[in-house]
C-alpha cells in the first residue's frame, strides 16, 4: 500500500514537471503581456515535431534537439509578438483572445495538413528503460524530462530575479503602467517574455518526445492542465504555476490510483473549484482576496 502510494506520487511529480513547463509559459505571457495564449499547446506540438524530424532525419536524440527547438520557438515567439500580438494590445481583450485562439486553430490545421493525424513516436535507447528501486520504478525518459524541466524553471527564476531584463519583466508584470513610466521599453520586454514562453513550450515538446507520441492534437491534452495550473497558482505567478503543476500531477495520479482511472480530471477540476471558492486569486496569491 505504502509502495503504491509512493509510486503514485512519483508518477504524478514526473508528469507534473511537463505540465509546469507549459503552464509557466502561459503564466509568463499572462503576467507580462496580459494576454491569454490559447495557442501554447500548439507550440508544444511544434516542439515535438521539431524533435521528431531531427530524430528521424538526422538521428539527433530528442533531448539534444532541445538546443534547436528552444531557440527556434524563441524566435517564433518574438516574431509573433512583434507582428501579431503587438497590434491587438489595447483596452479591449476580445481581439487578443480571438488572435491567439485563431493562431491555435491555424497551427492545428496546418499540422494536420502537413504532418497528417498519424501518431509519431521516436524510440531511444532509454525510452522504455526504468530505474528500479526496491518495488518502485522511475522511467528514465521521464526522470530526465523532469530534471531538465526543473532546471529550466530554475534558470527562468534566476533570469527574472538577477538580470535587468528579467527585473524589467517582473516590474511590467506587477504594474505595467508604472514600469513604462520608469523607462522600461514594453515592446522589448513583451517580445522576450513571449519568446521565453514559447521556448519553454518547445522544451516541453522535446522532453516529451522520448516517451509520448506526437500528433496534431497533442498540445490540447497538455494545455488544459496548464490552464488549470495557471489559475490554481495565481495568474502571472511563475513559482505558483510550477507548484500548482506538480500538485496537479500528483492529484491526478492519486485520483487515478485511489478513486478510479477515469477520475484523474475530476480530482484536478474539483481541486480547481475548491481553490477558486476559498482562495479566488489562486494558491500563489499573497492575500486571500
Amino acid at each position, binding site marked *: 500500500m505504502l509502495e503504491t502510494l509512493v509510486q503514485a506520487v512519483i508518477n504524478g511529480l514526473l508528469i507534473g514537471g511537463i505540465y509546469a513547463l507549459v503552464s509557466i509559459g502561459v503564466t509568463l505571457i499572462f503576467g507580462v503581456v496580459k494576454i491569454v495564449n490559447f495557442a501554447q499547446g500548439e507550440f508544444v506540438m511544434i516542439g515535438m515535431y521539431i524533435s521528431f524530424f531531427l530524430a528521424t532525419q538526422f538521428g539527433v536524440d530528442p533531448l539534444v534537439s532541445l538546443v534547436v527547438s528552444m531557440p527556434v520557438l524563441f524566435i517564433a515567439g518574438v516574431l509573433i509578438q512583434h507582428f501579431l500580438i503587438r497590434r491587438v494590445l489595447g483596452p479591449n481583450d476580445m481581439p487578443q483572445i480571438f488572435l491567439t485562439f485563431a493562431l491555435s486553430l491555424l497551427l492545428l490545421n496546418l499540422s494536420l495538413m502537413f504532418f497528417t493525424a498519424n501518431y509519431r513516436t521516436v524510440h531511444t535507447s532509454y525510452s*522504455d528503460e526504468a530505474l528500479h528501486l526496491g518495488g518502485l520504478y522511475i522511467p528514465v525518459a521521464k526522470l530526465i524530462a523532469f530534471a531538465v524541466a526543473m532546471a529550466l524553471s530554475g534558470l527562468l527564476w534566476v533570469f527574472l530575479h538577477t538580470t535587468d531584463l528579467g527585473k524589467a519583466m517582473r516590474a511590467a508584470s506587477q504594474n505595467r503602467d508604472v514600469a513604462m513610466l520608469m523607462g522600461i521599453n514594453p515592446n522589448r520586454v513583451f517580445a522576450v517574455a513571449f519568446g521565453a514562453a514559447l521556448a519553454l513550450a518547445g522544451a516541453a515538446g522535446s522532453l516529451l518526445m522520448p516517451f509520448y507520441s506526437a500528433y496534431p492534437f497533442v498540445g490540447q491534452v497538455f494545455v488544459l492542465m496548464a490552464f488549470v495550473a495557471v489559475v490554481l497558482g495565481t495568474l502571472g505567478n511563475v513559482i505558483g504555476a510550477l507548484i500548482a503543476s506538480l500538485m496537479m500531477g500528483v492529484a491526478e495520479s492519486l485520483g487515478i490510483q485511489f478513486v478510479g482511472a477515469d477520475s484523474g480530471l475530476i480530482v484536478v477540476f474539483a481541486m480547481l473549484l475548491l481553490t477558486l471558492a476559498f482562495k479566488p486569486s489562486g494558491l500563489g496569491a499573497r492575500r486571500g482576496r
Partner: protein
Amino acid sequence: MTGDNELSAINNAAPARGAQKKLSRRKFLVRTGGVLAAGAFGAVPLRGWAADPINIGALYPTTGSMAQIGVGCVAAAKLAIEMVNEAGGIKSLGGAKLNLVVSDVQSDTTVTRTETDRLITGNKLSAIHGCYASALTLIASEVAERAKVPLITGSSSDQLNKGRTYTFTPFARASQFAKAQLQMAKLVSDQAKVAVIFENTAFGTSTSNGLKELAPGEGVEIVMFEPYSAGFTDASPLINKVKASGANTLFSISYLNDLILIVRTVKQVGLNVAINGGSGGFVMPDFYKNVGKAAEGLQGVAHWNHDVSEEAQKVNVEFKKRTGEFAFEYAGGLVAQTFMLADALERAASADPKKVREALSTLDVSSGYAAMAPGGKVKFGPDGKNVYGRPVGVQWQNTDLVSVFPKEDARAPLMKT
C-alpha cells in the same frame, strides 16, 4: 426522357466532391451529350446508355482526432466502389455504377448528426456506411433510421442492434469480442487473472461489460475492472494499479494513442503480463510502427483480418499498393460491406433506400467478397446482426498481424510470450 436525364445530371452535379466524382460526372455529361446528339439525328440508342449512378453515402472522420483511420476508411470505400463498378456495376439496374458521396464527420458527435442529416437531405442516397467509431455510428444510425435509409457498419457496439430496423452490422459484436478474448486468455494461462482497463465511452463500456458478464462462464477471474478517460498524459498510475492487482493478463480496450502509452509503460515497469489489446487502435498498422518490438506477441481481436480468406488477401494486396499499409480491420470489412450493398441492390433492382433495406434484410451470402468475414457467411437477423458473425483472434508476429484464433480461422499458432 432526355430532359429527365439532364435534370439528374444537374442533381448529381450539386453534391459533387473530389476528383473521382468529378470524373464520373464528366463521363456522365459526355454520355448525356452523346444521347442528345443521337436524338437530334433521329437514332436513340437507349441500350448503350449508362444508368443513373447509385449514391452510397460514406460518413467518416477524415479530420479531427480519428482522421487517420477515417482517411484509411475512405480509401477502402473508394477501392470497394471501383471493384464493384469494374465488375460491371449493378446489372439489374442496367449496369448502374456506384457513386461514393463522402462526408467528413470530424470525429465529433454533433457534427456527425448534422452531417448525416445534410448528406441524406442533400443527396438521393440508396444506403450509407460509416462511421468507424461506435460513438459516432450510434448517432448516424439514429438519423438514418428516422430518414429510412439503410446504414451498414463495422462498428461493434451492441447498442446498434437495439430498436433499429435500418442498421445492419455484418461483423462480430462487442459482446462477442469479449468471449473470444477470454478464451484466448485461457490459452495462455490455465489460471487466468485478468485486469480489464477500458476507455469510458460507448466502445470501451460495451466491450468491457461483455467481458465482465462472460468471465465467470468462461472460468476466467477478473481481478481489476477499471474505466479511464481516453487521451491521458501518463499511463503510469493506471499500470501501477494493474501491478497492484496481481493480474497475469491485461485486457486494454483503448484507442491507439492510449494503448501505445500503456504498452510502453508496462514494459518500463517490467510487468510480466500477457496483453490483449482488443480491437480499435491495436489492430492498426500504426500500432506496430509506434510500439516497435514491444508489440511482438501482443494479442487482440478483430472483426476482420487481412488473412481470413483468399478474397481478403486480394483486397489486402490492392489496399497495400494504394496506401502502403496492410488493409486494417475496418478498411477490409468496409470492402465486404460495399459488396453486401451491391448484392442487395442487385436483388432489389432498385435504388430506393427502403427496397435496399428489404433486400439487405434477406441477404444470405457464403462466397465472394461480400462473404469476406471470419466465419465466411453473412445473413442478417431481425436485429440487423449477422447471425454467423464472429470475431477473429489476432497476434502480432514478425511485424505482421496474424489470425490465431479460433482454430478454423487461424493461419498461425498462438505464441505464448
